């Protein structure tokens, strides 16, 4: 009897341990449930991932669709829908082996045909997609067997894995596309952890947990279905209303402005997450036409710019970090050694250089051109409040060296149209692209009539850009981008200003939320305290 009694605690321990141990893929029952409401500043235009470059849509794609690969915290690429891949010896062909047992939320299986179908559709209808150009380099695709997909390219293309991990490269269900007669703007079906529940125009998009999801990346402790039952995207355009909705508990997640940080940072109802973003804001010069086709003039003006003052005054030293180089600190290719080539704030030097270039100050202290005309360069920027403040500060900084900067703020559509026509002298804007190949988008000769908004074309840089796109050896590739950055910093078509920092307030009811990569939050382990 004594022996039996001694066994009782052991039995109880074993039974309770068995009861507590979660099944490998099923989350603990207590954590499943609840909803998190995000703010969407505009409606997502469409949930057809081949027909848009809208950032709100892109965020939602990240829940519904999944790409072949994902980018880990160390910037390396890991398999998501792909289990492994092999690059051919000439680097022109990639063979992906897909994971077994993955299904779309409509129940159809993920296979090589589905991947081929998705990418061929992107080639056919994806002119609005940011990765459309990438797939112009893809000559053919093949579904070799159920789980083997081959992609053949015209020439080696180093940023291919970056372009394959963006949310626009998600794989969609061919069955769903056919059922919707190719009209999937509101009938999105992917393999993601969430599926579309409801699309209320102008109000809210509701996503619900995919209970069959069991292929979460190794980034997460939870490899099965997410814990949070619903994600809602509520459309609220007005910043004051967004804050009121956060205070009232109508929304749970909101990106904060500098002026709101102290209030929400000390409020126990919220947790504030912060991280760098994949991008940079720069002051550009129209390098195609006089007078800013002169690199010396660009460099002189760049030295009159006080980046630290911008970060301090506009962002209260909280939502931005001064940047030295064209590639932001958060992006692969950034190298602190490049700081020695930075055109630092040296107003005295800027004045001397302007003098030597013939831009002499008049009686009122403001400079004239070598031809004796008033020197009044025009800065084009967007109507955003932040850009307005920076432009005003730049105006004051340039005035201190005798340059009378004019500001023209245009609504974003008009700004996009104005820059290829070279209506501007200076240009204030930013980019967001997590790949050193951003050079080919924003500073290459091919793009002077489109996304290269400073119209800068330098054959030497062009050569580096082309090499960078095709070089697959990582060390060699980084050296190419080191050289490209050094050249850009010396030639100064851009004066890099700052890297934005994102601060996000999240309702404290959300548990186990993790800071993700550059501005993102990792929600897959998160659950709601009830």
């Amino acid at each position: 009897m004594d022996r039996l009694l001694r066994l009782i605690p052991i039995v109880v321990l074993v039974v309770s341990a068995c009861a507590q141990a979660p099944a490998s893929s099923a989350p603990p029952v207590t954590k499943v449930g609840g909803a998190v409401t995000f703010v969407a500043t505009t409606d997502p235009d469409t949930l057809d991932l081949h027909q848009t470059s809208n950032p709100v849509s892109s965020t939602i794609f990240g829940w519904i669709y999944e790409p072949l690969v994902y980018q880990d915290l160390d910037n390396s690429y890991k398999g998501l829908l792909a289990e492994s891949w092999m690059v051919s010896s000439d680097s022109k062909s990639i063979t992906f082996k897909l994971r077994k047992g993955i299904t779309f939320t409509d129940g159809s299986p993920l296979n090589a045909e589905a991947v081929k179908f998705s990418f061929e559709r992107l080639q056919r209808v994806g002119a609005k997609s940011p990765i459309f150009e990438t797939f112009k380099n893809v000559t053919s695709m093949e579904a070799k067997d159920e789980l083997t997909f081959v992609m053949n390219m015209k020439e080696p293309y180093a940023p291919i894995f970056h372009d394959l991990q963006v949310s626009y490269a998600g794989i969609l269900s061919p069955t769903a596309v056919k059922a919707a007669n190719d009209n999937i703007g509101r009938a999105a079906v992917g393999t993601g952890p969430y599926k579309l529940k409801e699309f209320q125009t102008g109000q809210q998009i509701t996503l619900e947990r995919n209970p069959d999801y069991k292929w979460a990346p190794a980034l997460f402790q939870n490899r099965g279905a997410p814990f949070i039952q619903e994600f809602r995207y509520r459309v609220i355009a007005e910043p004051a209303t967004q804050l009121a909705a956060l205070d009232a508990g109508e929304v749970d997640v909101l990106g904060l402005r500098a002026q709101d940080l102290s209030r929400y940072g000390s409020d126990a109802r919220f947790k504030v997450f912060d991280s760098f973003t994949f991008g940079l804001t720069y002051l550009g010069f129209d390098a195609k036409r006089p007078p800013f086709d002169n690199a010396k003039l660009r460099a002189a003006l760049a030295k009159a710019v006080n980046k630290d003052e911008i970060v301090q005054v506009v962002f209260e030293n909280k939502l931005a970090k001064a940047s030295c180089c064209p590639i932001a600190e958060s992006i692969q290719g950034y190298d602190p050694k490049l700081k020695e080539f930075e055109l630092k704030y040296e107003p005295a030097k800027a004045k001397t250089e302007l003098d030597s270039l013939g831009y002499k100050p008049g009686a009122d202290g403001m400079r004239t051109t070598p031809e004796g005309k008033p020197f009044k360069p025009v800065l084009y920027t967007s109507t955003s409040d932040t850009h307005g403040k920076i432009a005003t500060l730049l105006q004051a900084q340039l005035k201190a060296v005798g340059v009378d900067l004019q500001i023209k703020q245009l609504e974003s559509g008009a700004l996009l149209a104005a820059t290829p026509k070279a209506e501007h002298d200076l240009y204030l804007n930013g980019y967001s692209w997590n790949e050193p190949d951003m050079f080919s988008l924003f500073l290459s000769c091919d793009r002077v009539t489109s996304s290269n908004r400073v119209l800068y074309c330098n054959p030497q840089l062009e050569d580096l850009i082309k090499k960078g796109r095709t070089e697959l050896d990582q060390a060699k590739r980084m050296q190419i981008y080191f050289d490209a950055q050094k050249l850009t910093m010396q030639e100064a078509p851009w004066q890099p200003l700052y890297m934005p920092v994102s601060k996000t307030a999240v309702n404290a009811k959300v548990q186990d939320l993790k800071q993700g990569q550059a501005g993102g939050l990792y929600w897959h382990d998160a659950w709601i305290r009830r």
Partner: protein
Amino acid sequence: MIRYVLRRLLLAVPVLLGVSLGVFLMASAIPGDPATVLAGDTASAEQVEAIRHELGLDQPLPIQYLRFLERLAHGSLGESTRTHREVLLEIADRFPYTLALALGAVVLSTVVGISLGVFAAVKRGGAGDYLTMGIAILGLSVPGFLIALFGIIIFSLNLHWLPVSGARSPASYVLPIVALSLHSAAVKARITRSSMLEVFGQDYLRTARAKGLRERLVILRHALKNALIPISTIIGLQFGALLGGAFIIENIFGWPGIGRLAVQAIFNRDFPVVQGTVLVAAVTYALVNLAVDVFYAWLDPRIRYS
């Protein structure tokens, strides 16, 4: 009367065509074409050109307008360049919300405005008159968006009575309708007061009183009905203003109406949606004003349309 209504409806057709042409020309003059906006800031020139071709924007302007008319004749307003949905569907999703807001504001502002105006006229020169007209001046001078923001702070954040944004429950209609109707109520209060004071001096009111009718009946049945003609004109005109002014209120309250749709469409250069929303607003405005004209005849049997 039926012939008159039919004639007015027919006359509205060239007006609407004129409106559509005007909007088309204005839209074409806005810098930045839809293809550039849709392609985004990383697109190549070829991508922009491909989108331009897909949308038919590489065609001459008259051809583009004729195509719009052709679609219109087939009962279609075209497809949104941004969402790829039929413009009519986009509008159908949102118009009921704007209409509910505008109708709610018309009803509330009319009831409040007329009540205050009648009260002020009856209490002419007294404290009640000054107080009522003071409130009306306040309503005229304080912008609607300020009322909206104060409303959110008081009723949503402090008292937790009403939601901050959206149109998900009957309670969410309260703040937007109140914010939208205050200015309009103030205008109606002032018009009602002056219109009533004009009527007060008429012989038929003296006769009504001489017959021994109760003062309440004299004011409501005899004075107010006759004072309503200028007020009903204002109601019709203000309905259009409410449709247009709803944008700011829709933006503040995250309201899914056509005001927000139209402005978003302008920023996105989604011209089919811009044309569609303007046409729908114009049709609504024309119909409301026709209804007001018909209402005149009911108010004053001497008014006849031929």
